């Protein structure tokens, strides 16, 4: 657990212990995700830097053991093996942003990251935001209050990109925030209302 990251994104008014409990609860979402059984890389494991298949990931504050192929992306692992389907794969090429998650509090495209490369790093997905009692993260609440997003497919990516951006700039202007989420595509093009909602959410985060 990387305390600083949790501190920066945990809903205010929630103790760190509560937050960790909440993300563990979320992470425990049941998953009948299929294990990949495709041809595995059979490299000589004695080499320096050779990777293990069975690894531990830190996802939403929970340690998850998972069997990972060398060529597997973080998006595949999270969606198919850990049942965290909040993030979406809209393009699989880093061109839409729907798969954005936080890696050590930094927004990244999970479709374009090898899962092996995030070992030892803290992954936060949209499932890790709301409290176990259902209380929304202030950022989510802000968007809810403004009826942000239309189809909602891009919403988890936008939320995670915004959270990461707010770590570096907690008091953004609307234009600065637009730049912060300019790596997220919304095909309903509800950008105007999304920005309004995210700005309100940022305001709630500062207040709480």
């Amino acid at each position, binding site marked *: 657990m990387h305390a600083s990251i949790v501190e920066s994104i945990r809903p205010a008014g929630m103790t760190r212990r509560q937050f960790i409990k909440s993300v563990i609860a979320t992470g425990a979402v049941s998953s009948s995700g299929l294990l990949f059984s495709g041809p595995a890389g059979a490299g000589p494991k004695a080499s*320096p*830097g050779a990777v293990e298949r069975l690894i531990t990931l830190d996802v939403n504050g929970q340690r998850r053991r998972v069997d990972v192929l060398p060529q597997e992306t973080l998006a595949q692992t999270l969606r198919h093996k850990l049942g965290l389907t909040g993030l979406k794969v809209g393009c699989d090429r880093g061109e839409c942003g729907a798969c954005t998650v936080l890696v050590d509090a930094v927004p990244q495209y999970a479709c*374009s*990251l090898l899962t092996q*490369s995030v070992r030892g790093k803290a992954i936060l997905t949209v499932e890790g935001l709301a409290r176990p009692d259902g209380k929304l993260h202030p950022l989510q609440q802000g968007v809810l209050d403004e009826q942000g997003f239309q189809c909602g497919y891009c919403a988890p990516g936008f939320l995670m990109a915004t959270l990461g951006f707010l770590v570096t700039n907690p008091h953004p202007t609307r234009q600065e925030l637009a730049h912060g989420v300019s790596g997220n595509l919304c095909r309903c093009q509800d950008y105007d209302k999304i920005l309004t909602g995210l700005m309100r959410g940022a305001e709630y985060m500062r207040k709480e």
Partner: protein
Amino acid sequence: MAIIRDGMPPFDLFRPTSVDDALALAGRFGADAWILAGGFDSLERFKDRLKRPKAVIDLGGIGELRGVRRDGGDLVIGAMTTLAEVSRHPDICERFGLLAEAAAAVASPQIRNQGTLGGNIAQDTRCWYYRGGWTCYRAGGGTCFAGESPQGQNREHAIFGAEGCVAVNPSDTAPALVALEARLVIENHKGGREIAAEDFFVGPDKDITRLNILAPGELLTAIRLPATWSGATFYFEKVSDRPVWDFSLVNIATAMRLRKDRIEQVRLVLGAVAARPWRLSEVEAAIMGCDRNAAAEAAPRLAAKGAAVLPHNGYKAVLAANLAKRALLGNKDA
């Protein structure tokens, strides 16, 4: 064999934690190895089945390849330093703002968070034929579909230095590094060398199959910014169709030393107009010692001189000319 461009075919993955280990691996696998930096260029090509490496060496776990340090008056940037870090680093911003600006203009925030300076300059071309798996010269075939085919789509292709292949280097940071006279550290398991950034990039006249000189087994480990241009007058501008998340149609990176308005030293480099960053040497020579306003009058014609335009990219010559003028005036809103 049928084609699919989805998911990645299997490979062996190595995540060394030291440069020495990485070099040993690169040496051992040679041409069978693929060096992975931020991953945007690489993973796309794996998914598109354009590259099927046996072994992938991911440099992401090597701490010594990341970060910025001072070395006398120079700045040395680890090749795996992310573009976001480059764009925000206080020393870079203060002394070599040109590079910070160029790094900030790359793609999108997430790509800058993950993409690295080394990866950005070593990336391959985005020519849609080549990236689409067409067997062109660059891919070892016998034609250039963009430039030689009468109906070729070449809106985003080269106007300079195209011999056979008309692909361009899409990097936003490469022209900045050439303008700053950066030195690149290249290592293999036997040793290392440092070369001028300008000599790192190759055009189709030298080698039609690649954009840089990196050979199998070699790693780009660091980028050295010599004190030469520290604190100079800089200008960077990127023209693209989308204001974010797009490649340059044309970009320009310029470094100038001025005394009042008189140009004492200058380097102008265009990007996305050739297979390598395109230095406007003739413009530089012509305007040396001139007043910058007079230089801005003379530069456009010289900047576009020699442009060999294709049916759909004539506008790039106009951009080259106009950007040269704007760079010398130092005013984007001129």
